[in-house]
């Protein structure tokens, strides 16, 4: 698994990679994660169940992304792939430069590559145009791709021009063992609406500024709990001051993920006001905790929950208020425990891992082609871009050959397979395993 986004950074992509890796380990596969160094966290780390993580000492330069160098990551990617005996390289997130570079190098070296896109992106602004071009380059020669919703698949296919038959839809999931409802049912005398998200434009913080005062005016028994931080927090604080809602709107600030569940179970309704979402794991977590969700009807959100667990609204204040009213009326009929049990059956990371395994099997079955057969695929990316991409791949190929000459693959020592780590490993057995391997 390759991505710029992994723990200790926290988010949807990071937890997707972590949970998917854990479930693949349980299925008996060998999984190695490669990401960039985070501060002093550099080198090899082993996390739960012996999941090996390479924190390569490339410093991030913009929004947690590694500096794009095109070819400088080739030596370390090659070394890791050879020493760990990797067969499939799985990149995550279109915004990750390390992912794109690693997939390019893996493809050059003849390995199978899979890409998962986690977000929706636009088509019109300068940033999106450039990123879509990079995505076109990466997906021009991909074996298989995965998207987290049908909407996301449509978005990825349109942005990159990849054949839809190559794109699988494998949704995210939620750790229902961690997100359980409160054992005691909350009283309906006072309705608590919980909002936990980054307070940024993309997550609809401006919508909240319009919706919250109106809901507080119409429903005197409603109060809000807002968790999260970001540049739009100031606007929410101003809204509290302006409408004197200090006793009805509680601002928690940044909430560590370990505390999200305890905050969720203090509420009846979860409010999501995102302006764009490929999937939205947050509403899964809320539903798993037994909260009724009110969300904007954007992106892949309508595909996530059944109609009786979510009330959808257009991303406009009036419609959001109407949806909150409908949700408040539905609260007495909601049983959090029943909701949680339904979520357990609907979503599990084990199911995601099994479906991803099918994608890997399909990727392994795709034919191996040489450079000359692969170059025409890049020419379809554009009249000028296609030729540029071909030149980049040719240079990458030549650099790879040079590395093969300077440091042959036989000289790179393979890491012995010790399996999932247990509490105690006999030292002598480990030494014998290493000697036998060598």
């Amino acid at each position, binding site marked *: 698994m390759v991505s710029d986004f992994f723990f200790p950074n926290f988010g949807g992509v990071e937890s997707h990679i972590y949970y998917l890796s854990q479930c693949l380990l349980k299925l008996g596969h060998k999984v190695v994660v490669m990401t960039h160094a985070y501060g*002093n*966290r*550099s*080198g*090899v780390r082993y996390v739960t169940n012996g999941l090996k993580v*390479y*924190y*390569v*000492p*490339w410093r991030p330069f913009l929004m947690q992304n590694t500096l794009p160098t095109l070819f*400088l990551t080739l*030596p*370390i990617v090659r*070394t*890791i792939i050879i*020493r760990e005996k990797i067969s499939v390289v799985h990149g995550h997130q279109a915004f990750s430069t390390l992912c794109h570079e690693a997939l390019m190098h893996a493809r050059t070296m003849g390995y199978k590559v899979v890409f998962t896109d986690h977000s929706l992106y636009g088509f019109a602004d300068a940033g999106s145009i450039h990123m879509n071009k990079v995505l076109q380059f990466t997906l021009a020669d991909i074996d298989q791709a995965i998207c987290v919703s049908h909407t996301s698949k449509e978005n990825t296919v349109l942005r990159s021009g990849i054949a839809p038959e190559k794109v699988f839809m494998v949704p995210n999931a939620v750790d229902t063992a961690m997100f359980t409802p409160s054992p005691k049912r909350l009283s309906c005398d006072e309705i608590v609406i919980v909002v936990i998200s980054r307070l940024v434009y993309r997550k609809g913080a401006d919508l909240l500024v319009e919706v919250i005062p109106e809901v507080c005016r119409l429903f005197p028994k409603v109060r809000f709990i807002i968790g999260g931080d970001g540049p739009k927090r100031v606007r929410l604080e101003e809204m509290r001051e302006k409408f004197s809602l200090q006793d009805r709107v509680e601002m928690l600030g940044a909430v560590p993920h370990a505390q999200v569940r305890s905050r969720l179970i203090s509420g009846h309704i979860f409010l999501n006001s995102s302006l764009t979402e490929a999937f939205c794991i947050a509403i899964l977590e809320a539903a798993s905790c037994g909260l009724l969700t009110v969300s904007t009807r954007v992106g892949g959100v309508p595909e996530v929950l059944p109609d009786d667990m979510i009330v959808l609204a257009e991303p406009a204040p009036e419609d959001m208020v109407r949806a909150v009213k409908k949700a408040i009326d539905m609260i007495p009929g909601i049983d959090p425990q029943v909701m949680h049990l339904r979520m357990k059956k609907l979503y599990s990371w084990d199911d995601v891992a099994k479906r991803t395994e099918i994608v890997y099997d399909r990727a392994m079955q795709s034919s191996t082609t040489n450079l000359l057969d692969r170059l025409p695929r890049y020419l379809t990316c554009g009249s000028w871009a296609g030729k540029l991409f071909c030149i980049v791949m040719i240079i990458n190929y030549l650099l790879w050959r040079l590395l093969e000459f300077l440091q042959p693959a*036989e*000289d790179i*020592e393979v*890491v012995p397979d010790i399996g999932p780590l247990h509490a105690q490993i006999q*030292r002598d057995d480990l*030494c014998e395993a*290493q*000697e036998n391997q*060598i």
Partner: protein
Amino acid sequence: MNQEQKCEVPCGIYTYEHHCRMGVDIHEIFVKKSRLRVVLSYIGIVFLLVNVSQPLLAKESLSLGSVWNITFAVLVAKCFQYKPVKKESVVIMPAFGVQVEIHFWSGRVDRRFVPIGKILKPLINECVTPVTCYWSLTLLLRDEEELLLVFQKSRPPVKMLVPVWKALCTLTNSEHLGPSIVDEPNSSEE
């Protein structure tokens, strides 16, 4: 009584030897001199001399261009500098400590002695750099934040590190089984 074991690796520049002499366990790794690097170091020195002597012979005052040339030449000479290592050895003295030695072809020897009480654990560690990843043998020391690299200049293959690591483990285990010391979880890992 001397016991000698040799182990050659595919790249052929490392040779491993093991001696036992008067109760002292000596593990040595010999490194072949690289002729290419010697030639490159001479080229670097000649390049530096040319850049330094050119403004002197031309009897011109130092201009910005010549300063840049000299600075560049110093960097190139530094890059190509080669202090070849003849061998690196680990001398294990039971109940006493471990001495780590670096012998250069120039005759210089760097030595560092680590008393046995200072060694918490020997480790075979994976080191990750921006361009590569390799195995190294290190000592985890009590009350010190940094690991001590046993083979500091050379990067021998892991099959040469394993017998040295085993010998160091035997040393530290025998020390811990002696007096009743409880292992303190003093890890330098973050």
